[in-house]
């Protein structure tokens, strides 16, 4: 995706209302454009800000409360930026059966974090996820868009260290 100055965007960029309007406009031909818009806004800016919600509400002819209602309903949407990398650890049953919870506790203790928190240097956020469909290669994790399976406490810690 390109921002309003024509640069290809990889990492989240700071707020750019022209670019945000352009993103919204690109999705207006879709039926039910709300979720695709929110995903695209979050991909570009890293989270969905008050400014973004205001623009979306105006363009979709909705109240800001309605847009907020949608944003707050879904676990994926952030209202504040995450760390540079996001590590999602599966906490569902198959991963529990293979010691996923113990691995996660060990990692969180090492990093001094609780679920959903970010390291003080802003590099890594650790979050829970409920099943990645890798249940026969449990325990599993998603580091940004990269999948990892058959983790143990050591390999999970190594994975987190790569992101730090």
């Amino acid at each position, binding site marked *: 995706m390109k921002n309003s100055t024509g640069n290809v965007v990889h990492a989240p960029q700071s707020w750019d209302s022209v670019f945000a309007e352009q993103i919204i406009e690109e999705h207006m031909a879709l039926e039910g454009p709300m979720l695709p818009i929110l995903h695209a806004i979050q991909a570009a800016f890293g989270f969905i800000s008050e400014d973004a919600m205001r623009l979306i509400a105006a363009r979709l002819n909705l109240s800001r409360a309605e847009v907020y209602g949608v944003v707050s309903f*879904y676990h994926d949407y952030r209202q504040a930026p995450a760390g540079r990398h996001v590590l999602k650890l599966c906490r*569902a*049953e198959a991963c529990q059966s293979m010691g996923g919870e113990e691995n996660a506790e060990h990692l969180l203790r090492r990093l001094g974090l609780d679920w959903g928190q970010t390291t003080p240097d802003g590099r890594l956020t650790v979050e829970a996820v409920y099943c990645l469909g*890798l*249940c026969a290669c449990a325990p599993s994790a998603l580091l940004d868009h990269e999948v990892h*399976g058959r983790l143990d406490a050591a390999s999970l810690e190594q994975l987190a260290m790569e992101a730090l």
Partner: protein
Amino acid sequence: MRIFIPRDAAALAVGADKIATAVRAHAKTLGVDVQVIRNGSRGMLWLEPLVELDMPDGRIGFGPFTLADIPGLFADPAAHPKALGKVEEIPFFARQHRLTFARCGVIDPLDLEDYRAHGGYTGLARALSLGAADTVAEVKASGLRGRGGAGFPTGIKWETVRTAPGPQKYIVCNADEGDSGTFADRMIMEGDPFALIEGMTIAAVAVGASRGYIYLRSEYPHAISTMNAAIAKAERAGMLGAAVMGSAHAFELQVRVGAGAYVCGEETALLDSLEGKRGQVRAKPPIPALVGLFGKPTIVNNTISFATIPFIFEKGAKAYADYGMGRSRGTMPVQIAGNVKHGGLFEVAFGITLGELVQDVGGGSATGRPVRAVQAGGPLGAYFPPALFDTEYDYEAFTARDGLIGHGGLVVFDDAVDMARMARFAMEFCAHESCGKCTPCRIGAVRGAEVIDRIITGQDPVQNLSLVQELCETMKFGSLCALGGFTPYPVMSAIRHFPEDFAPAVMPVAAQ
């Protein structure tokens, strides 16, 4: 030399991409001409990465493959320490009835010609010549029941949409696959995406729908990109678009990505989510078949339900219905996961017992300790103790034992499991994912988790246990959908079958 290295997310999770890159590089240094095909997975996930060599008399497997295994592959494959022999003769594979997954792991998922060469699009051609009414009749005759969980007859749903009045109808694929312990939807989308496209197109032809959506969970980035690529290819080949396969039918298909809400797998919440709203469950009636997406008649089916349709049309309804038992016709891609030796996807005719699946096919626990419990059917499914392993894999047989097949997941636990903790987790998950519409689900689940915590810490276990049971009754009867309504299954089955984990004092009560 043709080498198959899966692109399935489970294979990627254990290093398949690194192996593919290194195999190409190694071949280059040797000056050997190799064609690396990124296939889907064969479903033998404990063997992933499972690398296959194309040999004159069949494909030979090697796995679980590591980087160190590469040189041997080019030297003397037959003597390779990871050689598994012919892939299709591995017992886990040979015992299956692969109808829906016939092509998965075999073909290049994004090669439309490969798809056609393996029977692809013969089904659509047949449906086009049969016409709408006979197409629906064929689905009915197959006995196919929805694979998303509820097991509703697919043909009856299609008939309702076909005969519903209205110029605009929709086909919606439920690819939300939120149930833990399940991955069949993911595997088919990554391993044979055209099967899903063809199945949905047949549905569109059958009911006169011109638009379709695949609601695909965001936790599946690889499935999303494979589906998008396959749709683009099908469009270019004229298999989607204004004139499907040169016919008068138009069908446009899009992927829509979910946003991390388990309840959006419930069909009406899914429709609200597609419309851009909070994913809250709608009261039924009206049923989605009549008042669905944007208020229009809509087929909502699970990914596997749709992906099974091409087989039914290629080989005939009878060929499908010949498999199975009782009112469970055909096959189920059972997903064996968790603490199990041979985890993976095992497609089999209904009627096999739970014990065969866990012990014979799955090989018992991964840790080698005794299997203590199996959760069947995802987070809303019951826990089965080995004493019930004679249960036949059949919708009705599972119901009779207070369980459910759901989407076909089995999660195995060894004897280290604490069932009170699992019961607590079921409540916690329900509270976390509740859409908030009904009080028993929204509040009851939070209460439930608190009360189980008290049992775990030994506070008034007898009294608190009966409180949990009361809460379960309230949730069961006072919830609009199965999230609140079925959470009592894992909770109550844990209490019933594993009373010793809920404090010894309660054993006589729970045993009654």
